[in-house]
């Protein structure tokens, strides 16, 4: 389907879409439609999408669940996400419909967590204040398309000075039986002095091809803290496009981890902006690729305010005929003095067919800054391999250890102990060519 066919579907089903959503969401659609008609879907001629042809990905004949039919999902998939020793507040989505939550206890008063559809009806004032104000629709991308078709999603609202100890987890599953495109929307608001940890787990072992679009908007107020761990473990038939927008006020702290453990074709982008001084962000990611998999990470950090810090670390391991792409842009605006920014992308290619593009970029208009970026593409260190073999570690194991250590640098940055060890376990499993399912579902045992 092309831009026009999405527009046609939209026009033909406008009433159906509105009926299945809320007035707050519907009020954004006209502008989204205008932007989509104007900017369209990006092809590889757009600088930000040089190696990911989004218009082609979206051109397949995807079905959309505009009538809000309840779609069956495989519930055992959900257990892949349980993290031993870490109790979370679990929520589920099937495709783009919020289905249930696993009990609602333990959340402090005033915290809202759950279906965006429901909350946009019951708390329209809060949702309308934030929804659609951050996602940039004035450019080729999926923000406009997602806004046109969004009917449900997930939302967390943390009021002032509330610390949520227990991480909030959203498990997204794709229905097994239908070839569909899911338009998910996520809204996260962390008010002054509050803190939140959010685990987004995207799982799907659907045999049929499916595609998910996810646009997240995160508002982090003064002195608030937000951690987002976005874990993707899907199948080779899965296509996933995400855009995550972050706005940070004074002295706020944000960490975003994009972990692509198993996928088909993936494009993740993070757009963050410092609106107040003294804030910091850390954007990290790993991608483990083999077969014909593709992962494209794009980050854009906009230093609008002074005294802010950004740190990025992305690591890829490419096997088989996989392709990887990383593009990171750091913009330091005039007067954003005393900015400190660091960006690193390191990649290991294991086969002659694997291909990696990397493009770290700096655009700096202020002078009192310390900015650096580095990128490397290489192989496993032969000396280290030799050293380990000498000491009786078999070649295969030695390679494993090196890769694990290589990716471990990213995972080590996760402050939450149980999650860190769980992720290390998943990475190890994945590197051993497992489909990385945990004990819970019995698939990997």
């Amino acid at each position: 389907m092309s831009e026009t066919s999405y527009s046609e579907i939209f026009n033909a089903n406008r009433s159906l879409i509105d009926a299945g959503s809320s007035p707050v969401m519907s009020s954004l659609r006209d502008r989204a439609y205008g932007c989509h008609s104007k900017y369209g879907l990006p092809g590889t001629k757009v600088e930000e999408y040089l190696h990911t042809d989004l218009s082609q990905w979206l051109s397949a004949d995807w079905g959309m669940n505009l009538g809000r039919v309840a779609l069956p999902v495989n519930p055992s998939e959900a257990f892949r996400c349980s993290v031993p020793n870490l109790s979370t507040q679990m929520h589920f989505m099937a495709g783009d419909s919020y289905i249930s939550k696993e009990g609602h206890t333990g959340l402090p008063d005033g915290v809202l967590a759950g279906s965006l559809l429901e909350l946009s009806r019951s708390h329209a004032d809060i949702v309308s204040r934030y929804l659609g104000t951050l996602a940039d629709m004035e450019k080729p991308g999926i923000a406009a398309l997602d806004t046109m078709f969004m009917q449900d999603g997930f939302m967390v609202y943390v009021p002032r000075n509330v610390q949520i100890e227990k991480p909030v987890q959203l498990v997204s599953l794709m229905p097994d039986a239908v070839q569909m495109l899911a338009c998910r929307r996520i809204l996260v608001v962390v008010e002054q002095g509050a803190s939140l940890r959010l685990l987004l787990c995207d799982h799907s072992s659907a045999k049929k091809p499916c595609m998910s679009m996810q646009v997240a908007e995160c508002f982090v107020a003064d002195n608030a803290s937000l951690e987002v761990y976005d874990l993707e473990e899907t199948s080779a038939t899965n296509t996933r496009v995400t855009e995550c927008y972050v706005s940070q006020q004074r002295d706020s702290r944000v960490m975003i981890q994009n972990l692509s453990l198993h996928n088909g074709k993936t494009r993740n982008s993070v757009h963050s902006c410092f609106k107040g001084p003294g804030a910091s962000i850390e954007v990290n990611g790993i991608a483990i690729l083999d077969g014909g998999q593709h992962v494209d990470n794009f980050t854009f950090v906009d230093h609008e305010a002074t005294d802010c810090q950004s740190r990025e670390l992305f690591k890829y391991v490419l096997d088989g005929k996989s392709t990887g792409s990383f593009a990171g842009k750091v913009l330091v605006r005039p007067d954003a003095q005393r900015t400190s920014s660091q960006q690193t992308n390191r990649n290991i290619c294991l086969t002659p067919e694997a291909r990696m593009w990397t493009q770290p970029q700096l655009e700096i208009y202020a002078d009192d800054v310390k900015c650096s970026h580095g990128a490397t593409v290489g192989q496993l260190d032969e000396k280290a391999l030799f050293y380990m073999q000498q000491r009786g570690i078999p070649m295969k194991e030695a390679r494993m250890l090196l890769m694990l250590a290589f990716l471990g640098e990213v995972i080590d940055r996760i402050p939450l102990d149980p999650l860190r060890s769980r992720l290390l376990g998943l990475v190890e499993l994945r590197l051993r060519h497992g489909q990385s399912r945990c004990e819970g579902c019995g698939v990997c045992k």
Partner: protein
Amino acid sequence: MKTGDKDNGLVRELSEEKYRFGFTTDVHTDIIDRGLDENTVRLISARKGEPEWLLEFRLKAFRHWIQMPMPQWAHLDIPPIDYQNISYYADPTVKKEGPKSTDEIDPQVMKTFDKLGIPLEERLALSGGVAVDAVMDSVSVKTTFKQTLAEKGIIFCSIGEAVKNHPELVREYLGSVVNYRDNFFAALNSAVFSDGSFVYIPKGVRCPMELSTYFRINAQGTGQFERTLIVADDDSYVSYLEGCTAPMRDENQLHAAIVEIVVLDRAQVKYSTVQNWYPGDENGRGGVYNFVTKRGLLRGVDSRLSWTQVETGSAITWKYPSCVLQGDGSQGEFYSVALTNNWQQADTGTKMIHLGKNTRSTVISKGISAGHSQNSYRGLVKVGRNATGARNYSQCDSLLLGSSCGAHTFPYMDVNNETAVVEHEATTSKISEDQLFYCNQRGIPMEQAIGLIVNGYAKDVLNRLPMEFAVEAQRLLSVSLENTVG
């Protein structure tokens, strides 16, 4: 250092710094009418008495060019250029009256080059000196030491002369590195190119002296579109220097050149540029638009090509000297210092394209921005599917002097071979206050301290320049930089 008064004083002083080469020469110049169409191309070709094949080459390029849009991807703000309002050929060697003699040079032209410090008389050159091809506007006025070089079999002359005397060489290599379809400015140049230098170093010959070309734009309302072709045959060596200046004018003049270098088995070419086109005044008025395509094809095994550039001039620079590492074991190097001040804009860097096995490339780029200028590094390192054992190291540093300028880095890496090792590092910062304080403490005044630090910062690159150029480059840097930091 933060005191505003001193700041202003220093900035004023700097803006009053005169461009030393901004004079004009009053010499009779034969300029063809402004505008560009097929007839212009035919006229240029006829003026130069070119053979049919070359005219065909030009026409093909022109027909391609008119279909091309001007590229917009660079991080540059280029005002619209009226290509019909430029004269594409200006010949200062044509006498008003009397018989034409090619040996005789107008004394005015001679004086111009003397003033620029370029000796056109061989007896004036230092011993062991430098052979010069002096190009003014569209025509090469003189090439020195031709005889001495010819004894070794080296051909060093203007490209127009080479077309007449060595058509087989020119025909074989012209356009073999930079195709006329390569980009907008390459197509334009291929259609209207005028004199540049032609160098051929025969097998096994080590060129005994530095070869150099000095480009000078003099006439008003013209552009310069020179073309240089260097061929280094097996086991040869040459070091080539290029310098350029232009008068101070309020209009923007266009310079769109092509440099092609072919390096054969085990040959080595060193190409050094000190680019000092008129950068425009402190308000960004005037200055040369320098849109250049430079590329070397390392065809031979173990061949080497090294680009060294010091970019201080031009209102807008758009330049990416590149290496296509085709021969196994070939090595490409790129060393660059790009300095922008006032309202200058530069988007410069390199492309290292690894195709052969065990190829190596090094990129060292130092950007310095001051005033209201924008300075970007843009580079590509590409490792092809069969380029086993390719190795690249890139380092791009930027120094910011003043809070109104910008420094940007856009490296692209495309790796398609698992044995490749590609590394890129970049840093951006301002001059460390600690370093300045240290110098001040020891009695070194602020301007000198800045000069010292910047020269130290650029040293990795300046050290690569031949002696004649290194002195000039250091002077240029300090002239442009003194008094910039407040």
